[in-house]
């Protein structure tokens, strides 16, 4: 029966200052109940302070067949990583 319901992607903000992260998906008949299902499924153990749900059908995904041309060119360009800086201890979440 849940197959009759649309799928929603769930994003949780673990605490203030952090970005919402994708954690999974739920079935629900509408947006309001999707939020409730997401709350009951993914934030039972104090995992979050904020929730987003997005209809899965609205997610535009890259084509796996194009992974080569999309992502491989970045592989050999380590100078694009900001790994050559010393990060002060006080700076979190980088």
């Amino acid at each position, binding site marked *: *029966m*849940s197959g009759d*319901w649309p799928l929603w992607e769930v994003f949780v903000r673990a605490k203030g200052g952090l970005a919402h992260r994708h954690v999974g998906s*739920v*079935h*629900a*008949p*509408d947006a*309001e*109940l999707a939020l*409730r*299902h997401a709350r*009951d*499924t993914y934030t*039972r153990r104090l995992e979050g302070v904020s929730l987003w749900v997005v209809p899965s059908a609205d997610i535009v995904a890259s084509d796996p067949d194009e992974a080569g041309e999309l992502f491989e060119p970045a592989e050999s360009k380590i100078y694009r990583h900001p790994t050559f800086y010393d990060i002060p201890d006080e700076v979190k979440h980088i």
Partner: protein
Amino acid sequence: MASLPPIDVPKGATGAGAFDAPAAGARDPAHFDFLLRLGDDALVLGQRLGEWCGHGPVLEVDISLANLALDLVGQATLLLNEAGDGDQLAFHRDVLDFRNCLLVEQPNGDFAQTIARHLLYTTWQHMLFQRLTESNDQFLRELAHKAVKEVAYHRELASEWTIRLGDGTEESARRMADGLGWCWRFVPELFEVDETLQAMIDCGVSPDPRQFEEEYRSVIAAVLAGAQLDQPTDQRPILGGRRGHHSEHLGHLLAVMQFLPRTYPDAIW
């Protein structure tokens, strides 16, 4: 086949049924009874919702109902431990000693009937707990303060589902109306004030539920209007749960819930 171990009946145990839990002790009997009423409501409704576990119409609803059940069992644990030994009270009392209202022991029926029961109970419970945050009793004040948010969520969720089922398909509307029709006659008991409750009202431990009956009726009417459902016609009210006069459904519930600790009293898990 091993025979069942004998049941220990503590000295001084009292009660209308086979009350083998320790007696109330030094506590004021009305106060003890009041804690049992709230604790048994939560325990029995929690057990009922737990019956859905693994049987929910969809996985998400299954998890949702189990969550509600756990909230209620948590409240019951606090309340019954305040009244006495929570485990003894939960697992070693018989039907006649339970003080829950008749509404919470009603069978789950289909999902709509479960939602109808939850709407009617938790809307009342929420209004009660809001006022219990100002109780003279420190324990109840703190419990209500903590639980009132859980209960608000229960009430909201039950309202949302009532609206969706009532204003859904022809079949869901019929089932929702049937569920409400089943539960409706147990609403007046929620607002009954007997001697015990009057004593608790007089000493400032409990609010008087009659003070929020009108608000309750209008809130439920608003949810039903949103659900495009007619209010069920008032039937002859059925009372008695608070005095231990229960429907036949409670005994079956307790048989399942109490089987293990009664059969293996020293079991640890």
